[in-house]
């Protein structure tokens, strides 16, 4: 815990709400809050998935843990969820593949929670978990540093990425409630989160949409963050004093290159055939796809386009300096150990297959 020289805005006895508490990140945030000594936690979940495990962890602790099953699209559920809370960790997110679905699950759900939260007199901070994907690599040059000031995507239909659209709109609403209603907030934008519990190989390494794995990342650094590191960053951004209204990019320190990561994956999890596609080649293929999509009036939707290509595969560096300076966060698990745990988990999944 690198927090000694930083003051907290809450006491350990204050009531804390986690939305999406049974998700991949939510359950780890829950564990870290218990580890930090929080005594009253309310877990808001939509489904009963993973709930037994959370209950087991809760019972093993001395904390008073409430489990509340509901839907953030219901304003009543939101009101009940935020009642008397001092701190909200809003992690629930949509995984729909449609724009409307992502908007509903991310933005609309957040709006309901914000509206309920602004009426809560005890509330000291609303911590909103966004995504690094809200930034647009298309408006950046190769080699630029991506930090909190980097451009946000504005052409949503051209980018054709419902998830990032939902998160952009979620961020806008959080900022709006901060401005219009004085709601104290912090936004965290983690890079792709990996670790035990996450089954897929991250898309920033490459794609397997055409039956063969196309490795596109090459020597780019992957803006990854290990689950334990991410959860602790979220917790710190929620409790440290003096950072209201701030946004934090959250990535690990020792980022592997895409090539290194793929090599390790093949060595430790499973071997498979992959073809290296240079970034420029992939970029122009995306341009052709985009043109075809337009010409054919969407017969093939523009799922491959230059904006996504630049955002996910253009060579960039990523800065977590602000997060470290302002919250005292340091990654608790280095890449070597993190990748070992992740690959072991993936390998066990492969063996079960």
């Amino acid at each position, binding site marked *: 815990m690198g927090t000694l020289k930083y003051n907290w805005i809450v006491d350990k006895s204050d009531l804390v709400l986690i939305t999406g508490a049974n998700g991949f990140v939510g359950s780890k945030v829950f564990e870290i809050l218990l580890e930090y000594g929080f005594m009253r936690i309310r877990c808001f979940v939509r489904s009963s998935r993973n709930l037994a495990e959370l209950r087991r962890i809760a019972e093993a602790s001395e904390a008073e843990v409430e489990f509340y099953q509901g839907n953030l699209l219901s304003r009543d559920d939101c009101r009940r969820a935020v009642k008397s809370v001092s701190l909200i960790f809003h992690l629930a997110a949509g995984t729909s593949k449609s724009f*409307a679905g992502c908007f509903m699950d991310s*933005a609309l759900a957040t709006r309901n929670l914000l509206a309920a939260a602004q009426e809560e007199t005890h509330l000291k901070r609303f911590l909103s978990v966004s995504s690094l994907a809200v930034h647009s690599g298309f408006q950046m040059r190769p080699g630029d540093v991506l930090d909190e000031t980097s451009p946000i995507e504005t052409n949503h239909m051209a980018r054709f990425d419902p998830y990032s659209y939902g998160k952009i709109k979620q961020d806008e609403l959080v900022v709006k409630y901060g401005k219009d209603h004085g709601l104290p907030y912090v936004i965290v934008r983690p890079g792709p989160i990996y670790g035990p519990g996450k089954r897929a190989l991250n898309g920033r390494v490459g794609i397997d949409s055409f039956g063969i794995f196309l490795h596109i990342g090459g020597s780019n650094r992957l803006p990854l963050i290990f689950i334990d590191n991410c959860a602790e960053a979220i917790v710190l951004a929620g409790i440290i004093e003096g950072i209201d209204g701030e946004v934090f990019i959250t990535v690990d320190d020792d980022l592997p290159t895409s090539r290194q990561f793929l090599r390790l994956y093949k060595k430790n999890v499973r071997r498979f055939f992959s073809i290296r596609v240079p970034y420029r080649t992939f970029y122009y293929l995306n341009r052709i796809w985009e043109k075809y999509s337009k010409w054919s009036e969407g*017969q093939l939707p523009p799922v491959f386009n230059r904006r996504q290509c630049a955002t996910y595969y253009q060579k960039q560096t990523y800065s977590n300096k602000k997060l470290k300076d302002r919250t005292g966060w340091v990654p608790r698990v280095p890449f070597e150990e993190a990748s070992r745990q992740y690959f072991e988990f993936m390998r066990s999944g492969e063996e079960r297959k």
Partner: protein
Amino acid sequence: MIRVGIIGCGKVADKHASQILRVPDSEIVGVCDQEELMAAQLAERLRVRLHFGDSQNFLATCRPDVVHITTPPQSHYVLAKQCLEAGCHVYVEKPFTLNSEEAVELIGIANASGRKITVGNETQFMPVARDMRRLVQSGYLGGAPVHMESVYCYEFTDERYAKALLGDKNHWVRRLPGGLLQNIISHGIGKIVEYLPDEQVSVFATGFTSRFLESIGETGIVDELRVIIHDSQDTTAYFSFSSQIGPALHQFRVYGPKNSLIADYDHQTLIVMPQKRYKSYMNQFIPPFSDARQHFANGCRNIKRFMRREFHAESGLYFLIKAFYSCLIENRPLPISYRDILLTSRIMDSIFTQVKCGNWETRVQ
């Protein structure tokens, strides 16, 4: 120029909007959702000038020629009535209404006000369905259909639908009188109704919850349905809805007195079964090659359509919207007749009644 409005700005509205924008001489003049943020997001993405949170205000301000209603079915009747009374033509997403009484009333209002209304059974306008229609109309079956089989499967592994439904105990689909069945089966029943010669039909239906759903504690959802339909001219049909059949088929077969047809909606293939017998072993040697030739020809036709930009995933929806708009402008017949809408509705009512009571037979007059 046809001025189009959309009420209901969820996932289905996106599909509608993308196809409306492809129809020549049409423009979306406004979108509306009772949750105004949803209307705002659709308007922003599609660059629609006006968005609303109130349907009365939307109709009064935008004065659209046609309104697409893409809300959950519980609100179809009220909104469609409001639009018709405001002088708009209406395209209602499937299922048309919650029951046949509402359907009768809406069609009555449409007729009285000189407006037109249709339902979004777009699978009936996919390329393979149009090919089948052409063949049937040309007399290929050799008379009225003797029997039909419609299989419509649903995948609980398809997270677009199933995750939303299973993950939400208050999902609107659960609150429909016919539950999950009501939201889906009009696709399969509509295909049968189109070729049923008579409106006097008997319906025999049985439905139950699959063991899969029972195993996850979802005992309230009926996801297996078997139906027999029998009309007064002795045309019969089977309809099967299943979440457990693998692969999840979407097929429709029409058996005529002379020849028969099989349409596969997933692969967009239409196979003809001509009444032709070969001598001796030739009857086992030649037809398989003839079938292979048909599948090959179907593949080529699909590729050709793709090359001609006619093979969009939503091509059925596009065709239905376009046909509906032409019917408004050029006074052509409706793409889906009122008779078909009402009969589909009545058969569905009968199915839900039987599934609910466990009765095997009710007669539909």
